[in-house]
C-alpha cells in the first residue's frame, strides 16, 4: 500500500519479453474494467444531478460538491454559506485517523525496534506474532474489541472487580473507542515497515555516536530515528490512509455521534439519505485527499533516495 | 604444439558490437575460434568478455556484426536452438531437481525419452565421478561437486561448443587448480571446443591453447600462452599478464632489427626492434623480472648499476628490488634454488642489473 512506484529489483531479465503483453493482458482487462473504469465512472457520477428516489439524472451539475461545502437554505435560493456539517465530518476523520496513527507509532516503534534487535532466528517468530491478527477478519476483530470494551464487558469487569474503579468506564461510543479500534485495526502496518528499516540499521552508527559521548537517548533521537525515518513515514501512511476511510471501527465502536467519512459515504448508498452523486462526490474528495498524501510521500521518498 | 589453424572454424565473430543504452560494451571485435580448441577470453571485469560469451550463447543480441557457428550465422537463433551449452558462473543448477534430472534436462528438452535422458546423464556423471550423488539435490553438494554437475549438465547434450563463464571463480585455490587440469583433460577427451572466460591470467595460461586478451571492449592481443607472455603487443597486455618491469625508454637508433635505447639516467641497452618504432621515440619497454639477474660486476656492456632496496622471500622465488643510480626501480626475481645462476645480495649492496638475451620487449602503446 506504500505509495512508492518501485517495480521491484533491478532485474533486467528479458527471458519472457516476447510474451509480456499476453501475460499482462488478463490483469489489464480485469483491473481496467473492474477498478479503473468504475473509479472514472464514479468521478463522472459526482458531477450528475440526483434523482429523488436514489437514482441519477444524466445532467451535468456541481450540486453534489456544492452541497458538500455550502448551505443554500431549505429551498436552495439563499446566498451560499459555508456549511460545516460535512467538512467537520472530514475534519473529525482526519483527527481520528491522526490520533490512531500517533498511538500506533508510540506502540509500534518500540515494538518494531525491539524485534529488530532480537537474535536473527527469533525475529521471524516475533514478526509472525505481530502479523497474525492482521489476517483475522477485520469485522471479527472490531466486534471483539467492542465486546471487550463494553460497559459490562470483561475489561470493566476486571477493573471494577479488582477495585481499581468503583463504576464501569464508558468507552464504547466515544471518540476514544474509535481511535482504539483504528489503532487496533492497523497496528501491524506500523510495525512491519519500521521493523524492515530497523533491521537494516547499522548498529555501528549507535556505537560511533556513543563513543563520541552521546547518551543512549541522544543516540535514539539523533541517530536511530533519522536512520529509520523512511520506515516510520511508510508506517504512518499505511495506518493513516485506511483509517481515514474506514467504516467498521467508527460504525461499530463510535455510534451515531462519532460519524466518519466512511459512514457518511455508506449512508448515501445504503441508508435513507440515498444521494448517489453526493456519495460519489464525497468519495472523490476522500480519494483526492489520499492520492495527495501518497504523492507527497512518494515525492519525499524519491528525494530521500538520492 | 598442434596447429589449430588447420582445423575448421567453430565460432567466427565478425565486427561484433554490443551497445547498452549509451554504453558500448564491445567495440567491433573479430576473432575466429577453431574446432577442438581450448580458447580463453581473458580480461579484467567489464572488459566485454562475458558479454561476448553471452552473445555466442544467445542471451544477448548482437548490436552490429555477426557470429557464425561452423559457418552458419546464428544471430537470429534463440538460445534453445543453438548447439552450444554454457557452464554458468554460479552454476545455475535447478534447485528443485535432482542431480540426475539436472544433467538429463537438456536431452529431455531435445526430445529424448526420460529414461534415455537419465541413462546418458548417468554416463556423463560417471565421467565426472559423481554417479553416487545422482539422486541428491544440488544444495546437498559441495561447491566443487556442484561445479562438476554443472559441467556434466552442459556436456550431456554433446554440444558443438561449450561456453564456460568463470566457472572456477567460486572455488578455493587447491580445488581450482585440480579443476583446471580436469577441465583440460575433459576438453581433450571429448574433443569439444571450449570457450572459457576468466579474469585470472594464471588460469588462462595454464589451460588455454589460445588466449584472447580483452580490455575496455576491445581485443588487445590474440595468441598462445607463450606468445602473449613473451611478446606482449602493448602495455596493457604486458602489465595484465604476469609481473613485469614497465620502463620508459628513448629510442636512439633502429637498424637491422635491433633498437638502441636508453633509460632515464642514461643507461643504454639494445633490444629487438618492433614495427612502428623509430629513432627519437619515447616508448615503454617490458622486462620480465625472472629474465633479469644480478651480479657484483658488469657482465656485458648493458648492465645497470644500482643499490638493493628490498629482498622479499616468497617460497619458490626471491624477489629483489633494485634502485638504479639515477633511474627507475627494477624488480628482479630469482628462483629459490641452488642451481640458479643468481645470488642474493644484502640490502644496501651495490649491484649490477643484467638482462638475459631478448628479455626487453618494446611496446608501441
Amino acid at each position, binding site marked *: *500500500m506504500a505509495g512508492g*512506484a518501485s517495480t*521491484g529489483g533491478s532485474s*533486467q*531479465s528479458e*527471458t*519472457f519479453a516476447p*510474451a*509480456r503483453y499476453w501475460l*499482462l493482458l*488478463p*490483469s489489464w482487462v*480485469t483491473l481496467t474494467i*473492474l*477498478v*479503473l473504469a*468504475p473509479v472514472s*465512472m*464514479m468521478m463522472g*457520477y459526482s458531477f450528475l444531478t440526483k434523482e429523488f428516489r436514489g437514482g441519477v439524472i444524466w445532467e451535468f451539475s456541481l450540486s453534489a460538491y456544492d452541497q458538500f461545502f455550502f448551505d443554500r437554505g431549505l429551498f436552495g435560493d439563499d446566498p451560499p454559506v459555508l456549511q460545516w456539517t460535512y467538512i467537520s465530518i472530514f475534519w473529525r476523520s482526519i483527527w481520528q485517523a491522526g490520533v490512531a496513527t500517533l498511538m500506533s507509532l508510540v506502540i509500534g516503534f*518500540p*515494538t518494531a*525496534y*525491539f524485534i529488530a534487535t532480537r537474535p536473527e532466528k527469533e525475529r521471524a517468530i*516475533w514478526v509472525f*506474532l*505481530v*502479523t497474525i*491478527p492482521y*489476517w483475522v*477478519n*477485520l*469485522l471479527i476483530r472490531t466486534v471483539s474489541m467492542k*465486546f*471487550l470494551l463494553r460497559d459490562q464487558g*470483561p475489561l470493566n469487569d476486571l477493573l471494577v472487580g479488582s477495585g481499581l474503579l468503583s463504576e464501569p468506564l464508558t468507552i464504547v461510543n466515544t471518540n476514544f473507542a474509535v481511535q482504539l479500534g483504528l489503532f487496533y485495526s492497523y497496528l501491524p502496518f506500523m510495525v512491519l515497515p519500521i521493523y524492515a528499516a530497523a533491521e537494516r540499521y547499522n548498529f555501528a552508527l549507535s556505537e560511533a555516536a556513543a563513543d563520541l559521548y552521546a547518551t543512549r537517548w541522544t543516540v*535514539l533521537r539523533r541517530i536511530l530515528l533519522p536512520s529509520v525515518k523512511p520506515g516510520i513515514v511508510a508506517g504512518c501512511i499505511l495506518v493513516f490512509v*485506511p483509517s481515514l476511510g*474506514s467504516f467498521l471501527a467508527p460504525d461499530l465502536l463510535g455510534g451515531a455521534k462519532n460519524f466518519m467519512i466512511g459512514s457518511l*459515504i*455508506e449512508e448515501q*448508498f445504503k441508508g435513507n439519505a440515498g444521494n*448517489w452523486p453526493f456519495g*460519489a462526490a464525497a*468519495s472523490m474528495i476522500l480519494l483526492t485527499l*489520499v*492520492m495527495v498524501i501518497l504523492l507527497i510521500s512518494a515525492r519525499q521518498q524519491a528525494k530521500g533516495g538520492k | 604444439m598442434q596447429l589449430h589453424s588447420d582445423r575448421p572454424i567453430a565460432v567466427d565473430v565478425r565486427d561484433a558490437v554490443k551497445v547498452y543504452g549509451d554504453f558500448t560494451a564491445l567495440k567491433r571485435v573479430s576473432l575466429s575460434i577453431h574446432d577442438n580448441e581450448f580458447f580463453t577470453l581473458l580480461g579484467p571485469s567489464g572488459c566485454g568478455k562475458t558479454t561476448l560469451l553471452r552473445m555466442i550463447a544467445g542471451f544477448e543480441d548482437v548490436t552490429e556484426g555477426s557470429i557464425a557457428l561452423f559457418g552458419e550465422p546464428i544471430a537470429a537463433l534463440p*538460445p534453445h*536452438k543453438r548447439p*552450444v*551449452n*554454457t557452464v554458468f*558462473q*554460479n552454476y*545455475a*543448477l*535447478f534447485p*528443485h531437481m535432482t542431480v540426475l534430472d539436472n544433467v538429463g534436462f537438456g536431452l529431455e528438452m531435445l526430445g529424448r525419452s526420460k529414461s534415455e535422458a537419465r541413462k546418458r546423464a548417468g554416463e556423463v556423471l560417471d565421467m565426472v565421478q559423481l554417479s553416487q550423488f545422482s539422486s541428491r539435490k544440488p544444495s546437498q553438494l559441495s561447491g566443487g561437486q556442484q561445479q562438476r554437475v554443472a559441467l556434466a549438465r*552442459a556436456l550431456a*547434450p554433446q554440444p558443438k561448443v561449450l561456453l564456460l563463464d568463470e566457472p572456477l571463480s567460486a572455488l578455493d585455490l587447491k580445488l581450482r587448480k585440480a579443476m583446471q587440469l580436469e577441465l583440460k583433460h575433459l576438453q581433450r577427451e571429448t574433443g569439444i571446443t571450449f570457450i572459457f572466460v576468466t579474469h585470472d591470467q594464471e588460469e588462462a595460461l595454464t589451460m588455454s591453447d589460445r588466449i584472447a586478451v580483452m580490455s575496455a571492449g576491445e581485443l588487445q592481443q590474440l595468441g598462445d600462452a607463450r606468445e602473449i607472455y613473451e611478446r606482449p603487443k602493448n602495455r596493457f597486455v604486458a602489465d595484465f599478464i604476469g609481473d613485469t618491469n614497465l620502463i620508459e625508454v628513448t629510442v636512439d637508433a633502429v637498424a637491422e632489427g635491433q633498437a638502441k635505447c636508453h633509460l632515464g639516467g642514461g643507461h643504454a641497452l639494445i633490444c629487438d626492434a618492433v614495427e612502428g618504432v623509430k629513432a627519437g621515440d619515447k616508448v615503454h619497454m617490458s622486462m620480465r623480472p625472472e629474465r633479469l639477474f644480478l651480479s657484483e660486476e658488469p657482465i656485458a656492456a648493458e648492465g645497470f648499476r644500482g643499490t638493493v632496496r628490498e629482498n622479499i622471500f616468497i617460497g619458490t622465488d626471491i624477489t629483489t628490488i633494485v634502485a638504479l643510480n639515477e633511474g627507475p626501480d627494477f624488480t628482479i626475481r630469482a628462483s629459490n634454488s641452488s642451481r640458479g645462476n643468481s645470488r642474493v645480495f644484502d640490502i644496501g649492496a651495490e649491484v649490477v642489473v643484467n638482462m638475459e638475451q631478448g628479455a626487453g620487449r618494446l611496446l608501441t602503446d
Partner: protein
Amino acid sequence: MAMKSYDLRQYPSFKAITIFCLFILYAPLLVVTVYSFNDSVSITNWEGVSLRWYAEVFTGAESEKFKIAARNSFVIALIAASASTVMATFAATAILRGGRFKLRTASFGLISLPLMVPEIVTAVATLIFFNAIGVDRGLITILLAHIAFCIPFAYLPISARMQGIEATYEQAAMDLYATRAKAFTRVLLPLMMPGIISGWLLAFIVSLDDFIITNFVKGAGVETLPTAIFGSVKQGIKPNIMAISTMLLGVSVVMVTLSWLISRRDNNK
C-alpha cells in the same frame, strides 16, 4: 548486583511495550474465543464451559442463513483467489522477466491501484459501475469485485519470490534447449511455487474477510459470512456470533501459519 553490560541496542521499556503491543493485539481475540465456550445465554456472565453455541451455529434458528453465507464465502474466496493468483503470476512474469518496456511502470501501478484507493471508494465505484451497466447484483458481482481486489495481494508474495530467483535458471534451461514455454513450466514455475502458494492463501483470506466491498456489491438477500455477521451484530453481540467468529479466526490463523511455514521452509534451504 553485578554490573550490566552497556548494550546500546537495548532501550529500557521497549520490551515491556512490545509485550503490551502483543497483549493489545491478542486480548480481544482471546476474550471472544474464551466466551464462545460460555454456557450462558447472557454474554456477560460466565457459567462454565460448553459447546452449546457451536451446536447452535450448526443447528440453531439462524444456522441455515449462516450455512449459505459460509458456502458463498468459501466458494467466492476459492475462485477469486485462484483467478487472481493466475493473473498475478502472469503479470509478475511480464513485469520482472519481460525486460524494460514502456507499459511496465504503468502495469505495476494498475496492479497496485486497489491497494492505494481506499476500500470504501473502490466499493462505491464498483457499485456505481455495476449499476450503470445494468448488471444485477448478486454472487457474480461479488466474485468479480473480489477477483480484481485480490490481484495485488496475490502479486506481492509472488513478485517477492520471483525477485529472489536468478534469471540464470531460465537462461540455463534455454541454453539446454528448453523453449520459452518449457523454461517457464519446468523451471520458473516450480521455483516460484512457494510464492504462488503464499499469494493464493493471502488472496483467499482477503476475499474471505472482505466486508466493505461485498456489502456494497451484494444484492438484496445475498450474504457472505462477514455481511451476515455484521447484520447480526447490529442487533447486539450474541454468543453464536462469537462461536462463528472463533471458527473463522481459526481458519485465518491456520492459513497464515501455513503460508508462513511454506515461505520459511523454503528460505532455510
